[in-house]
């Protein structure tokens, strides 16, 4: 080989190495970005999912479980955030609850990263931002942006066809990594199936009465601005929907969980445990296929001219205008829906009440924004800071 060839190849190789190192550092930082949670005074215990199913212990999906126990006994409510970490309101709502809520009656179990693996990756070729920052009075808090599916680094390969267990229903191959298609899980299955199985063990062992799974959806998807309810909770969900329209100033639908659509939390948790299962959907234009630039601003402000145009052509199932769907609106819809669900629960089950306080409602979030309710980890007692 000539000297000139060696020099050229070395220079090109160094350029390639630089691209590899720079992109590698960025991917590594995304996967390992620490997300601090300041434990509020209402948190009485922090456990791990692996405490309920040893096979999950020490894995990427051995997520934190935050327990808020009231002074008086009552029902147990489990709130799942981060089933789909590309839907940030679903994670921010339990975050606010961990840092602010106090229980007077009953018990609240909060999950911020139900599919932790999916918080460490964004959609391939989606040009998603790797993180987003919620502005606060003390600067801002940065969160990992995630994906709908578990990270292929943690679960691979996908099958040609995903056969759901135990129904045997054929689902899209990629949904074997979708935490909301693998309920009720399988003890000896993939890590996503095992995660669902571990949650089912938690639900059974802790005698959970009500499970709420928090989501966001694209406006071109018909299941939006709604509560999807298992048969056991449909009447209550309808009452919640009516109360929200009446009391909170926004409308929320309710619909039944289809009996033949398997793997979803609102169907399988209700079928395989004593708990009532509900799923809440808020609008997230960031997820729409017709969106414009997939930026952090779009993610948090929910503004998009292309989605607005799609609405003018009658292609959307939720309204949108130039004001978009800001994150405070989406988070506020979820917090108020949770609080109204608790209030309606108390009407149906007065002997097993859930009373919770110090949770911002829709109107509070509209006025103050999400960052107002996030606590500064630098000013908190280090013993009260947990990382997701």
């Amino acid at each position: 080989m000539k000297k000139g060839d060696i020099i050229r190849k070395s220079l090109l190789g160094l350029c390639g190495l630089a691209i590899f190192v720079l992109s590698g550092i960025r991917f590594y930082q995304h996967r390992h970005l620490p997300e601090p949670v300041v434990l509020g005074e209402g948190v009485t215990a922090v456990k791990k999912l692996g405490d309920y199913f040893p096979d999950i212990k020490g894995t990427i999906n051995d997520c934190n479980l935050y327990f808020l126990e009231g002074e008086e006994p009552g029902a147990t409510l489990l709130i799942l955030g981060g089933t789909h970490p590309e839907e940030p309101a679903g994670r921010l709502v339990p975050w606010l609850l961990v840092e602010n809520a106090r229980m007077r009656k009953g018990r609240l179990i909060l999950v911020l990263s139900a599919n932790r693996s999916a918080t460490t990756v964004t959609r391939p070729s989606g040009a998603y931002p790797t993180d987003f920052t919620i502005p606060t009075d003390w600067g801002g808090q940065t969160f990992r942006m995630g994906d709908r599916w578990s990270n292929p680094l943690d679960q691979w390969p996908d099958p040609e066809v995903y056969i759901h267990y135990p129904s045997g229903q054929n689902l899209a191959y990629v949904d074997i990594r979708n935490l909301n298609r693998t309920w009720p899980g399988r003890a000896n299955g993939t890590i996503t199936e095992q995660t669902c199985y571990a949650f089912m063990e938690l639900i059974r062992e802790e005698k959970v009465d009500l499970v709420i799974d928090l989501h966001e959806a694209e406006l071109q998807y018909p299941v939006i601005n709604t509560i999807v309810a298992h048969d056991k909770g449909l009447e209550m969900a309808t009452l919640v929907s009516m109360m929200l329209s009446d009391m909170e100033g926004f409308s929320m639908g309710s619909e039944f969980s289809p009996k033949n659509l398997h793997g979803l939390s609102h169907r399988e948790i209700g079928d395989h445990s004593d708990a009532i299962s509900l799923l809440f959907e808020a609008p997230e234009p960031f997820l729409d296929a017709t969106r414009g630039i997939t930026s952090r601003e779009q993610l948090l402000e929910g503004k998009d001219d292309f989605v607005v145009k799609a609405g003018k052509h009658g292609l959307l199932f939720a309204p949108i205008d130039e004001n978009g769907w800001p994150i405070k609106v989406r988070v506020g819809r979820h917090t108020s829906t949770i609080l109204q669900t608790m209030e309606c629960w108390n009407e149906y089950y007065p002997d097993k009440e859930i009373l919770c306080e110090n949770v911002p409602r829709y109107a509070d979030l509209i006025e103050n924004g999400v960052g107002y309710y996030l606590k500064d980890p630098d000013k908190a007692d280090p013993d009260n800071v947990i990382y997701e």
Partner: protein
Amino acid sequence: MDILNSLISIIYYVFVGYIALLLIYNLAKSKNWKEEILYIVILIPFLLRLFRLK
């Protein structure tokens, strides 16, 4: 199924490593700078996967 998945994963990583080596070999043998750039660009995702970064 779990064992089968692990086995396929191991074989996959062996393939990725093998193809990465072939690309490096071709890069060394090539006389054309355009081809060399192409080999380097193709190599990057293989290395990212091999080092479990993406």
